[in-house]
């Protein structure tokens, strides 16, 4: 079959990429004291723009601005008024949606189809959803008058730059907190366009502060003594180190970390639908998704048939220019990430697994990795245990539902899982037994601000979205304590 498509590129001019972007602190775009960083377009590996980064003094100023805004403006403001600002931001994102989609695709490398249809609209929806909570906190089931925490320090990853910004900023602001947020080093642009939307919405200065920089800025931020709350989305190793460094501070922490999601296909599944779900589970955003369905568990009796269908389907995926509206799988975000994916895939080969990649031609520039299936793998191999964070699917088989459950749960992670079966009771039974924060029955990679998202185990703690996501930004500690003068051991002995 001929799958040739004529190129259908989106216009890069819509992104109106500037030569230089600045940190947003206390309501103003200011030059930061750190070294400039250059951001590249993963689809071409060419320089896209320059971003001024912050230093420690800038972080101090941002935290101080957030504190002032919290105390003087944002916390005293009525929830209804706070909500109106968030509604404005939601509208502002929608109005500049096409521009934001282009900026995101150029800076991140994911297909324009995804940024246009998912990242940007869902980001707007997050602000719209959380705007409505701002004057309804008493209905969260957390008491008559839940209080905000104060100043939140937030660090977000490069895989959904704008959407993660929305996930972090919207609930924090709705609850009455102010924020200092650091975008990822390789994807600082879309959040700085969001800063323009925020400024245009007349959000009071200091309520949102954006501090671009590398990992050292993130470390300075999360360890800043002026914070009341830290929220991090990223890798499990960094999450661990943040949890460790915050030990003893009493600062509220939520972590959304890595995963190795099991996607379980039973023999009675609708196979064509399952194939679509598997493809969506691992090739959405080129697998650079913490909740990707990166471990396929197939019931043995249908493994051969399913894999044949899957290979045929993967062969039809169009890999290439992220700006092309026909592209299914875009670029890998950075040379470093491409290197990691390459190394781990090679580790699978070295450990004796069979590695198969789609035969599609890859562009001769930019950072690309072909959709890849790893079969004949065992549960102990690195490709079955470690998060690859790329378009690489490891395939394992099982015989019984119990075995599927045991294999799926055999991971320190616990973020997502999928179940494919036409039998309702089995779907619900598996959903109950899977130790994962999100379970998709006969679907995968669905997200909505009304549905909470977050992990079990080493995938982190705390939720984003839904009522439980609001709890992450409120003081929910209602345990009565003795007055501090009476604290400590009672003098019984």
């Amino acid at each position: 079959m001929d799958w040739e498509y004529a190129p259908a590129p989106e216009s890069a001019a819509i992104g109106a990429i500037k030569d230089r972007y600045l940190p947003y602190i206390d309501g103003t775009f200011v030059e930061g004291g750190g070294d400039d960083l250059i951001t590249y377009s993963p689809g071409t590996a060419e320089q896209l723009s320059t971003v001024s980064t912050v230093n420690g003094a800038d972080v101090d100023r941002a935290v101080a601005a957030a504190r002032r805004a919290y105390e003087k403006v944002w916390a005293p403001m009525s929830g209804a008024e706070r909500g109106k600002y968030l509604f404005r931001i939601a509208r502002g994102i929608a109005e500049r949606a096409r521009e934001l989609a282009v900026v995101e695709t150029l800076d991140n490398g994911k297909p324009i189809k995804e940024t246009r249809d998912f990242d940007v609209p869902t980001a707007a929806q997050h602000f719209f959803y959380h705007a409505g909570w701002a004057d309804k906190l008493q209905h969260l089931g957390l008491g008559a008058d839940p209080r905000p925490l104060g100043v939140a320090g937030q660090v977000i990853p490069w895989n959904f730059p704008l959407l993660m910004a929305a996930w972090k900023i919207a609930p924090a602001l709705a609850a009455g907190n102010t924020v200092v947020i650091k975008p990822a080093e390789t994807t600082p642009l879309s959040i700085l366009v969001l800063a323009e939307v925020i400024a245009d919405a007349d959000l009071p200065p200091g309520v949102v502060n954006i501090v671009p920089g590398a990992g050292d800025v993130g470390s300075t931020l999360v360890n800043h003594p002026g914070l009341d709350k830290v929220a991090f989305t990223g890798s499990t190793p960094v999450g661990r180190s943040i949890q460790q460094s915050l030990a003893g501070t009493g600062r509220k922490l939520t972590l959304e970390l890595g995963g190795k999601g099991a996607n379980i296909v039973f023999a009675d599944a609708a196979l064509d639908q399952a194939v679509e779900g598997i493809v969506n589970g691992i090739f959405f955003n080129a697998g650079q998704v913490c909740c990707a369905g990166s471990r396929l568990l197939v019931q043995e009796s249908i493994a051969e048939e399913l894999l044949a269908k899957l290979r045929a389907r993967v062969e039809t995926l169009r890999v290439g220019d992220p700006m092309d509206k026909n592209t299914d799988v875009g670029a890998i975000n950075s040379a470093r990430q491409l290197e990691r994916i390459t190394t781990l895939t090679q580790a699978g080969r070295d450990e004796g697994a069979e590695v198969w990649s789609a035969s599609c031609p890859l562009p001769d520039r930019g950072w690309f990795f072909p959709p890849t299936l790893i079969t004949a793998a065992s549960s102990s191999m690195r490709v079955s245990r470690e998060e690859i964070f790329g378009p690489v699917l490891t395939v394992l088989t099982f015989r019984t539902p119990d075995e599927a459950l045991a294999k799926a749960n055999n991971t320190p992670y616990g973020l997502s899982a999928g179940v494919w079966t036409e039998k309702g009771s089995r779907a619900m039974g598996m959903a109950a037994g899977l130790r994962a924060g999100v379970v998709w029955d006969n679907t995968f990679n669905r997200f909505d601000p009304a549905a909470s998202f977050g992990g079990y185990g080493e995938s982190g703690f705390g939720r984003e979205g839904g009522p439980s996501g609001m709890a992450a930004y409120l003081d929910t500690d209602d345990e009565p304590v003795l007055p501090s003068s009476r604290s400590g051991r009672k003098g019984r002995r």
Partner: protein
Amino acid sequence: MNHLAVPKTYKLYVGGKFPRSESGRTYPLRDADGQLLANAARASRKDARDAVGAARKGFGAWSGATPYNRGQVIYRIAEMLDGRRAEFVELLTRGGAGASAAGSEVDAAVDRLVHYAGWTDKLPAVFGSSNPISGPYFSYSAPEPTGVVAVIAPTGAPLLGLVSVIAPILTGGNACVVIAAEPDAYVAVTFGEVLATSDVPGGVVNLLTGSSAEIAPHLAAHADVNALDLTGADAELATELERAASDTVKRVYRPRGTPDFATAPGTARLRAFLEIKTVWHPTGALSLAGGSAY
């Protein structure tokens, strides 16, 4: 002829049984006057690991029990405790409490258990949600137990404090390994006897006696422990344990002060050991529930 008393040997409570410490070590428990009350087992790292293994087994049984059943079992603990009121009053008074305070403490502990017995079948209704997602899917979020919780039990109120930390953990469907407050071991182990006669499956609650400073770091670093309750740890130990817990991204509950167990408990402890799971299921393009969200 006088009857020569038969004093109790205070052992550990692990996996529904009362073993001695594998280390063979003991330490003396003294009453308020400094008189020897009994020797208690001084649990070792190996005992802690055995307790985690037992808790993991207990977790399977307990988390799989129906909420109604869990509520009944917790209520049964209250019944058994109330039935042994006199014994606990005597233990608490020997530890130095006044008779009236000791009576109040036992009564409050019984009432605390009754309070939590009524929580087991309400958690999803209060902390979960039906999610109005914008697409053809049915979606809900519901709390589930975190798993195995290691607890440093508080000092001060030997029975009420212990019950107040264990009950919310059980209510959520978790299992626990509890390091009893060192001087209160006799109360803790006697409470173990209450648990053992209350239809609580073996391994759901495991009680270790000894030094929390010695045992707790092993539990905080243990990969099969999912969460820590640091209520009874002093500031220095608590921070050390929090640090150790980060290696396996454990949930940590550390009260912001000394809990006032005499008043209504709130829900923070209950929520600390619950995970929210969100499930999505397609409803198809053709909705039979015309007009409704699903």
